[in-house]
């Protein structure tokens, strides 16, 4: 009795191995899944959150939407953002007019971002800065190719990066 059972068990066991081999064989013949990375890329990077970057104004792409209010720095859980604002240089022609008119324009001195330093190595990509931004001045970049030889390179000057990109766009 137990001999028969043993033989049956062995036979079904061997059969299970054959089934597995057949599946492997079938998959061997199926098309390749690999993305040949540097030459070819995944197509869904736009939904990925890389490190944050400044958003340009729609009508003037060399200026950013950021007003340097510092909400992002306050809401960041790991404190990786240092932001400073500065006053936008006003067009000089309007200035005397504005000061002549009492209580109108001078109070509305436009501010913009002075410096925006992101210590990327502390960031957890949670997105609280982007959500807390009152002027929609931040977004996630798709820069996922980031690797560096020194730790200092993890600190990114976003204003400098923004200006570089704006200049690049202008040139192109």
């Amino acid at each position, binding site marked *: 009795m137990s001999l028969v059972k043993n033989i049956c068990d062995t036979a079904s*066991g061997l059969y299970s191995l054959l*089934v597995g081999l057949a599946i492997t064989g079938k998959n061997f013949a199926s098309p390749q899944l690999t993305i040949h990375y540097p030459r070819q890329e995944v197509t869904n990077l736009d939904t*990925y959150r890389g490190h944050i970057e400044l958003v340009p104004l729609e009508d003037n792409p060399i200026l950013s939407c950021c007003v340097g209010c510092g909400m992002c720095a306050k809401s960041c859980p790991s404190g990786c953002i240092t932001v400073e604002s500065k006053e936008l240089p006003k067009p000089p022609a309007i200035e005397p007019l504005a000061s002549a008119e009492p209580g109108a324009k001078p109070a509305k001195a436009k501010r913009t971002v002075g410096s925006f330093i992101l210590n990327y190595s502390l960031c957890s990509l949670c997105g609280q800065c982007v959500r807390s931004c009152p002027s929609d001045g931040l977004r996630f970049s798709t820069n996922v190719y980031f690797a560096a030889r020194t730790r200092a390179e993890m600190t990114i000057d976003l204003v400098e990066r923004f200006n570089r990109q704006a200049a690049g766009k202008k040139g192109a």
Partner: protein
Amino acid sequence: MNQTATNDVDVLAGDYYTRHFAAGPNDDTLILNMGPQHPSTHGVLRIVLEMDGEYILRAEPVLGYIHRMQEKMGENRAYLQYFPNMGRVDYLHALAWNWAYAGAVERLAGIEVPPRAEYLRVISCEMNRICSHLLWWGAYILDLGAFTPILYAFVDREEIMDLLQIITGSRLTYCYFTFGGVTADATPAFIDGTRAFIKSMRSRLPMFKGLVTDNLILRKRCEEIGVIDLDMARRYGATGPVLRGSGVACDTRRHEPYSCYNEFDFAIPTASTCDAMGRYLVRMDEISESLKILEQALDMLPDGPFVNPKAPRKVKPAAGETYFSVESARGKVGVYVQSDGSTTPYRVKLRAPCFSNLSLFAELSAGTLLADAVSILGSLDLVIPEIDR
């Protein structure tokens, strides 16, 4: 290794834990350190073993190699700022922890969650559960010596990660929930993609069964190994598939229904064999049950806001405490929050299912072969950062 039969902790060789462990009567046994860097411990778990030949006499897991101070951070950060941590407690089923924390604070602060958000939470959480089970499947078979299945598992995992990336923006450590809802709405691409995924996953499951589950070698490595009876599960507080593999149909989604889980029709898979194979089968069945929930949730997905517009930006619950538990891929996740009425929690306690599930390993592995202990360890489905927190 020092073999002196002495009780003096100070004269034995090895580090602190080895010395404490070895300080028993041992004449011709061997003290073996497995980990903290060992491929089958899934991270940095360390187990000190006392071996008699190939047999384990005693085992003692040593924890803390990836202790990341999560509970301390909870007391230092504002309620909303603690969310990113939740994605990193259990990185394989991050959304369950997201949910447990969001649920606890929402209950404490009385924040309502709109129906669409509840459904989106269910959908994303179940996707994440499948993703987690797939990785466990691949890694477990890898522990048992077969490399190929993990390659198959990652094909489906990549699909899920791509889909979840559409709404959450990340691949692994999601920070998708927020108080009163979720942070982004489902796009048509996500919904269509999920429907397509359900279909493809359904067709893949029989293949997994033929490739691995029915396999003779796997059955020999899993059957009648690591038998956990009900009393043992109760003494150690085991939950999740480890418990259901012992025949108890206890699932927080059904047991203590949170969100909208009582609106779905799904079974709680159990296995009566109580062994590693039982836990294996429970997890494989859970994948198909999750697919069922996903399908229903997509069909019933209501319109409306995905986040409560009245949810406060700065959460400041009244003084009090709450304990909220959800079912993760590994068991019952509990978040206990004490509020003193300020903007930071007074105390956050994270109840990790793996912590309890691993604690029964010492009893479970005594008297087994070392190779079987690896199989038992894998069948518990451990995520070490969740244990160490």
